[in-house]
Structures are given as C-alpha cells and as structure tokens.
C-alpha cells in the first residue's frame, strides 16, 4: 500500500530555517514531487516542485535524494506568516509511469513563534 508520511507538526521561531521531510516510498518512476501550503479555510497553494536533486525558487528549496523515496522542503528564515500546513504530493507507482493515484501526505502543521 502506498504510504506518504510527514511529521504531524513542527515548531520554529522567526528567522530560523525549517526543514520538513516527506517519505514517499512508492512514488511513480516518472512523476514529480510537489509541495503545497495551506492556510485555514483556503485551498492549498503551490510552493515548489522537483524531480531529483535540488530545486530552489524565491520562497523555498527542495532536496530530493537519488532514490526519490523522500524529499525535504526547506524554508529559509521563516516568518510568522509562514505558519500553515504543508503537504507533499506525489503520484504513486507501481513501476514505470504514473499509473496510480495522487497521494497527499497527511500534512505538517508548522507553527512559527516570535
């Protein structure tokens, strides 16, 4: 059974770097890993996406090891406004092709404190 897991919650302080790891041991061979941010009463919002190695944009970095069975979202210098739930999203396998369902992790609630 496909399993995508993340820590349920994390606490941090303003200005710190936050790293959230998602395990996705059944990711489809040719699918990507995408991370979303969700605020209360809103739909999720795209943060970053990658296939392998490292991707960086203006808000985050994404680290993906060679086996692609996990990924780590890195938020540099978080602020209070980064308090939200963060989800990883992958397409599950098996094997080659993205023939399975989309699987969201259960979400990591990040609480940034002043």
């Amino acid at each position, binding site marked *: 059974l496909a399993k995508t897991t993340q820590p349920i919650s994390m606490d941090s302080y303003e200005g710190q770097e936050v790293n959230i790891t998602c395990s996705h041991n059944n990711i*489809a061979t040719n*699918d*990507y*890993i*995408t991370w*979303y941010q969700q605020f209360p*009463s*809103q*739909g*999720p*919002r*795209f943060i970053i*996406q990658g296939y392998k190695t490292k991707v960086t944009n203006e808000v985050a970095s994404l680290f993906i090891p060679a086996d692609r069975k996990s990924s780590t979202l890195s938020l540099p210098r978080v602020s209070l406004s980064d308090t939200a739930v963060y*989800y990883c*999203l*992958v*397409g599950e396998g098996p094997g080659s*092709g*993205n*023939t*399975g*369902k*989309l*699987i*969201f*992790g*259960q*979400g990591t609630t990040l609480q940034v404190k002043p």
Partner: protein
Amino acid sequence: GAGVSQSPSNKVTEKGKDVELRCDPISGHTALYWYRQSLGQGLEFLIYFQGNSAPDKSGLPSDRFSAERTGGSVSTLTIQRTQQEDSAVYLCASSPRPGGGLSGGARYEQYFGPGTRLTVT
C-alpha cells in the same frame, strides 16, 4: 485573472438527500481534480479529468459519488443519499496541462479553489 471557483461555499443537507457541488476551473485549464478534506485531515484524491474524460473513477469513495465535466470546463461532483461521513470540505483544482496516467500525476501545478464545506445532518 479569475481563479478556480466553487459553489456553493457552504452546504448543509439532511442525511439521505442528494447534493451537487460545482467547480469552475481557470479558463483554458485542461486538467481538473476533485479532493476531499475531512475535518483536521489531509487531502484525499477523488477523481481527475483530462478534458471531459476521467481515466479512473476508483478513487470515488462509493457508488453514491459521481462526477462529470462538460465542455472541457465546468465540473459537477454529485453525492447521492448523503451520509454523515460525507461531511467534509470538497476541493477542486485545475491545471493547465494534463499529466497523463490515471490521476494526472503531480507534474503540473494545481490551482485550488476555496472549497465547498458540506455538512450532513
């Protein structure tokens, strides 16, 4: 430009009644997704449309759930004979390109609507 819109924003219904939830995707977006988010839970994938076709309907929770998309645009999620366990926020998302496969994959950024909060009493 206009984002993904969903209607109604809130729906309260009695157990056993049918409900229809509507999604208006971003104009020109080929792919459309439906998810369910129960209180305090993550997102559960329900169904994906590539154009007007849904390659796989097995993500729908039961045969009381159905979905359609017409004209490559508006989509409707219908729940028949609603049950209390159907209470959740139903989210719709669209994407400019279909990712292929049965679920569209995570390849292309999805733009989410605000959701419809369904309460079954």
